[in-house]
């Protein structure tokens, strides 16, 4: 990675995997309240990173500091090699931001709204006249391009917001709760769109508390609570650390229940076994134990009827992690 000093003003070269957002010991206090507490965050080029946490955990404050819209109390931020509090224009020219509650000038049309943004970005008129219809068309709003935004639904506004991002052609896109308030189909389409943007090489940082949606698109996630980033990594890594695996294998088998249970428990990687119904065992394991479990059931003299696996979900990681965290704090 390139070391940025006051003299080298050019952004780092665009190589995959280099860090494009870095914060170190980033802290923001409002009076006595600490909104963000010693945050160390690194996002690499080309990845989708999810900031997860309950409302009020400090996600939006972090995003505002990345964009230079709020001054950090202490610590440092680098976005594409620029310091957002000193060089906000350089940052904001290269980073697109989709706020959580997105608003447009209702009395203006979709085209006029984007034209204003294009002018604020200093896009030449001819270039803007080409890019605006293309961006709106791509987001499926071509038919309403000259309708006032007042007539748009929440989902359409969201898509217009993305059209605005496309217009800017940013290197990084930051989205704050992008799927909040969208109906399931719109949310699904939106997630697909995020993956498309990722394939175009755009780095995406998104914040959300809708974990199952985030799980579908994020390469890495960070769990946020009370201004601190508790843990971060890929979903599988977090599952290993928090749930020590988090795989749940349901075995349906008839035969000597005690023997089967003993045999399953003896398998390496098994943490716990529950017998939920007379012939149904649920194994909590560190990895995919299906093949071993099948062998164990047969060896114990049982008959195997069904074998089902449930991969670890972010919801579970989240609730287990925060349950442990609050229990730990309480004791």
């Amino acid at each position, binding site marked *: *990675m390139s*070391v*940025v*000093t006051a003299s080298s003003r050019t952004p780092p070269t665009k190589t995959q995997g280099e*860090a494009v957002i*870095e*914060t*170190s*010991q980033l802290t923001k206090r409002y009076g006595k309240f600490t909104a963000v507490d010693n945050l*160390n*965050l*690194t996002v690499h080029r080309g990845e989708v990173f999810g900031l997860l946490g309950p409302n009020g955990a400090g996600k*939006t*404050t972090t995003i*505002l500091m990345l*964009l230079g*819209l*709020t001054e950090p109390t202490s*610590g*440092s931020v*680098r976005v594409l090699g620029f*310091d957002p*509090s*000193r*060089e*906000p*224009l*350089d940052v*904001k*020219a290269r*980073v*697109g*931001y989709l*706020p959580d*509650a*997105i*608003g*447009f*000038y*209702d*009395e203006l049309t979709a085209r006029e709204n984007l034209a*204003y*943004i294009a*002018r*604020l*970005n*200093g896009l030449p008129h001819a270039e803007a006249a080409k890019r605006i219809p293309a961006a709106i068309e791509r987001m499926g709003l071509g038919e309403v391009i000259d309708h006032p935004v007042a007539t748009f639904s929440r989902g359409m506004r969201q898509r217009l*917001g993305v059209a*605005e991002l496309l217009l800017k052609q940013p290197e990084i896109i930051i989205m704050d709760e992008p799927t909040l308030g969208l109906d399931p189909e719109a949310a699904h389409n939106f997630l697909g769109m995020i993956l498309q943007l990722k394939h175009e090489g755009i780095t995406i940082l998104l914040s959300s508390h809708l974990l199952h949606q985030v799980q579908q698109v994020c390469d890495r996630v960070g769990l946020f609570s009370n201004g601190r980033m508790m843990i971060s990594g890929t979903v599988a890594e977090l599952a290993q650390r928090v749930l020590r695996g988090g795989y749940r294998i349901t075995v349906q088998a008839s035969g000597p229940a005690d023997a089967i249970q003993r045999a399953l428990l003896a398998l390496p990687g098994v943490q716990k076994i529950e017998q939920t119904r007379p012939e149904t065992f649920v194994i909590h394991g560190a990895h995919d134990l299906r093949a071993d479990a099948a062998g164990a059931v047969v060896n114990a003299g049982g008959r195997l009827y069904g074998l089902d696996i449930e991969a670890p979900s972010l919801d579970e990681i989240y609730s287990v992690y925060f349950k442990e965290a609050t229990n730990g704090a309480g004791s």
Partner: protein
Amino acid sequence: MAQAVEVQSTTVQPAGQVRRRKGSPWTGLWAVVAKEMADHLSSVRMQILEVLILLTAVGTVYAVMQGVRQSVGQDPFIFLRLFTTAREPLPAFIGFLSFLVPLIAISMSFDAVNGEFNRRTMSRVLAQPIYRDALLMGKFLAGFFTLALVLAAIWLLVMGMGILGLGLPPSGEEVARSLIFLVATIFYGGIWLALGLVFSVIFRQPATAALGALAVWLFFTIFWGMLTSLLARLISPVTYGTAQELLRQIEWEQALSRISPNTLYVEATLGILNPAIRSFGILLPSQLEGAIVGAPLPLSQSLMLMWPQLTGLIAATILLFALAYVLFQRQEIRA
């Protein structure tokens, strides 16, 4: 994690180095001005007020012309009379302006900043490569230019009606005097524009901001005049009834009343539009020695007379804008 630590070591500022922002604070200013001006000129509320001011201009000027037609040729400043003469039942045009201009100005600015928050456009706009300075300055300038445009149009209309109705062109001095009057009127509006902007930064509800600004306007239009005489009596009471004491009390009253932009505006306009006015205070007989009563002052002397009032109007506009600016810079962007 290791990378993060490495970066921190490179960004530590040498002690004492000033943290400067990079890039011009005026980037995007003209984009904001153009958008806001287009909004103002096409908004219904502005159009209503424009029609109102147009009607008062046509009405008062027409009424005045009925009266002054006879004196065409004798009065060297007949065009200026179009602005200042009241003819029952209508007040003078400057009387109308002194309360319509604040209304226009406040109506343009009371929802300038909080409106962006309420429409949730603020964070989206500020996420573009512009500084906040450009947004606030752009909003102020757009209001100011709109005001100047509307008032200049009205000025041209009055002059045009004068030429048609009176049948003679205005003299150079009349044009000069009425142009200075135009500038004073624009800055008088600028004060209320900046005041509306201050309230729009302070209050999140546009209705609260509008009422706050209108309350200040009402206070200065109606109540301040009553309060000044009371205050002057308190500050400088007349105990023995000497001339000095009376004089001091009147001076206090005048000084206090000039806190109100309305007083400044009325004095400034009268001073420039009525060449016969030589002083705004009381005139002692000694000061009138050798003066021909009613003889007009030259333009330069009239300008000197109203100069403090004019600069007062401009200074108040700048101060109020600076206040709005400071408040806005410190405001948190998250809604």
